[in-house]
């Protein structure tokens, strides 16, 4: 295992109804989700509920359960009671309303390229959801944005999740991942016009999220946001796995930014699990440096390390890269898997480009592509950073509509490189990954829609006419794959047949 591990993303989308300032975002988010839920493949046989039985968002990775008042444990259930929309898709993803935003969680995948594929499929799901919502008579057009701040003080997340070995000490994760997170911004940033949480100081920075982080480690996700989040809710066998919940990333449109973000992070996690990293890369003040790195588009800011050295974010990324390369060469040599080789090659190439001239990555990375557009306007129209037009460009870069989103216009012009074909992204809207339990979940929903009454990451619940419902636990994310159960589905026309086959009657 190198870059390959069980992983996924969950992205909250910005939502607005232009001209309707009073629109309730919980209502409009529900409209969007329900409109998508009306797709033919999702309406046969009634909609499956989300099964909350195994959820425990207050469990802390450091070993205790949180009892503060900052997060209401009944919140998720209350959302359900309020009738907030929730759709489980045949691709194994979850589309739902999280407070005041529509959110798409990818199905579990095993590698960075599949993560990009099912994450991009989520953008298309959102675009179609808003299109469908607009066809309902009396509805105003609802706009959706894949980004992380309204530039008025609110931020919403684009979280990454990585399955890790439970035995890895959490202190190691904090020590070795913090410097990596502070510096990976150089290629993961989505770009932002404005400095500070409310964006009121004029300027441009690499990331949407950096200014919203206030502490190094913690359980919170909405206030006092930590660089390392300690939520410990594995959705799998808790004795074997932890799910590392990463809240510091930006929502990326660029496929290369997303690929690098999850690929390099997964590789660093492997080095942490294998205990090959050393503590010499610790940053003296990570929270302050997170912002300083984000605010420096020349990538020349020198951070102070714990040992007194002063290094740039690129220097630290090179150090992580060199160690990853050496680790893979030493451990796997020419047998290094193709996914890992690709991550190493792209990682090295992007650091090299950014070191020569950051603008040379303008057809690869979000923050550079966006900055190039903004600088073009600044030159041509002599605009200041506080100009509403530049702020609009920042916002509209992330519009999910292909005809309006500026990212999409760049791709259409050939000005932005992509990794996936149109076909690959489109089919991922309905088809699950074949090599995780998402295959089992997705196939159940596609094949037995009227018999699946609920599902979650680690269960599918059936009503096959027995006295009680039948719950099939899926605590092993790598079981329920096509290889494992594909033939079984092929020969089981009903859910009853399937249950009889897997329980032996």
């Amino acid at each position: 295992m190198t870059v390959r591990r069980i992983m996924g993303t969950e992205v909250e989308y910005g939502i607005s109804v232009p001209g309707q300032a009073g629109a309730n975002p919980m209502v409009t988010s529900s409209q969007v989700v329900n409109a998508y839920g009306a797709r033919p493949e999702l309406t046969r046989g009634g909609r499956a509920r989300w099964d909350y039985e195994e959820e425990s968002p207050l469990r802390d990775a450091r070993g205790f359960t949180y009892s503060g008042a900052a997060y209401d444990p009944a919140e998720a259930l209350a959302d359900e009671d309020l009738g907030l929309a929730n759709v489980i898709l045949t691709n194994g993803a979850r589309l739902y309303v999280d407070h005041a935003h529509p959110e798409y969680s990818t199905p579990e995948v095993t590698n960075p390229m599949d993560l990009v594929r099912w994450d991009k499929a989520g953008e298309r799901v959102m675009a179609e959801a808003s299109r469908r919502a607009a066809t309902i008579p009396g509805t105003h057009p609802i706009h959706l944005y894949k980004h992380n701040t309204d530039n008025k003080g609110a931020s919403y997340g684009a979280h990454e999740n990585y399955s890790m070995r439970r035995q890895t000490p959490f202190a190691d994760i904090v020590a070795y991942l913090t410097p990596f997170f502070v510096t990976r911004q150089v290629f993961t940033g989505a770009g932002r016009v404005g400095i500070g949480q409310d964006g009121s100081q004029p300027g441009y920075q690499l990331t949407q999220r950096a200014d919203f982080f206030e502490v190094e480690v913690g359980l919170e996700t909405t206030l006092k946001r930590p660089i390392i989040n300690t939520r410990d809710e594995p959705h799998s066998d808790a004795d074997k796995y932890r799910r590392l919940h990463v809240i510091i990333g930006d929502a990326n449109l660029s496929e290369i930014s997303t690929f690098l973000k999850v690929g390099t992070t997964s590789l660093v996690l492997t080095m942490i699990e294998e205990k090959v990293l050393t503590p010499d890369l610790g940053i003296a003040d990570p929270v302050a440096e997170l912002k300083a790195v984000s605010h420096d588009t020349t990538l020349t800011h020198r951070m102070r390390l714990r040992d007194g050295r002063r290094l740039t974010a690129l220097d630290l990324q090179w150090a992580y890269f060199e160690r990853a390369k050496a680790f893979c060469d030493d451990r796997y040599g020419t047998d290094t898997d193709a996914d890992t080789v690709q991550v190493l090659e792209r990682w090295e190439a992007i650091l090299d480009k950014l070191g020569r001239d950051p603008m040379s990555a303008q057809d690869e990375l979000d923050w550079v592509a966006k900055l190039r557009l903004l600088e073009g306007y600044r030159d041509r129209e002599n605009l200041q950073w506080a100009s509403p037009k530049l702020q609009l460009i920042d916002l509209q870069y992330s519009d999910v509509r292909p005809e309006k989103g500026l990212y999409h216009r760049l791709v259409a012009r050939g000005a932005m490189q992509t990794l996936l074909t149109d076909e690959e992204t489109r089919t991922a809207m309905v088809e699950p990954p074949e090599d995780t339990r998402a295959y089992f979940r997705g196939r159940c929903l596609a094949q037995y829609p009227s018999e699946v009454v609920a599902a979650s990451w680690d269960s599918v619940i059936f009503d096959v006419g027995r006295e009680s419902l039948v719950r099939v636990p899926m605590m092993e994310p790598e079981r329920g794959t096509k290889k494992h159960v594909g033939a079984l589905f092929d020969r089981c026309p009903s859910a009853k047949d399937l249950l009889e086959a897997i329980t032996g009657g």
Partner: protein
Amino acid sequence: MATRDSGGQSQSGKARRDEEIEDVTTEANPEVAERQQEITEDVDDLLDEIDSVLEENAEEFVRGYVQKGGQ
């Protein structure tokens, strides 16, 4: 806070592997330069296209975009 690209060479790129950087520069430069030139010529055309899809009344649109927080 720096807001403009320096267009310059970060020390990070150079600091790392001087000899390799030299090689890569010699080999890749013509292609890169040509591509950069194409990109530059493209900018005006690009901005015209962006103008045609931008929402009207930027000030009002941006002011009206207010979100509740999230996770």
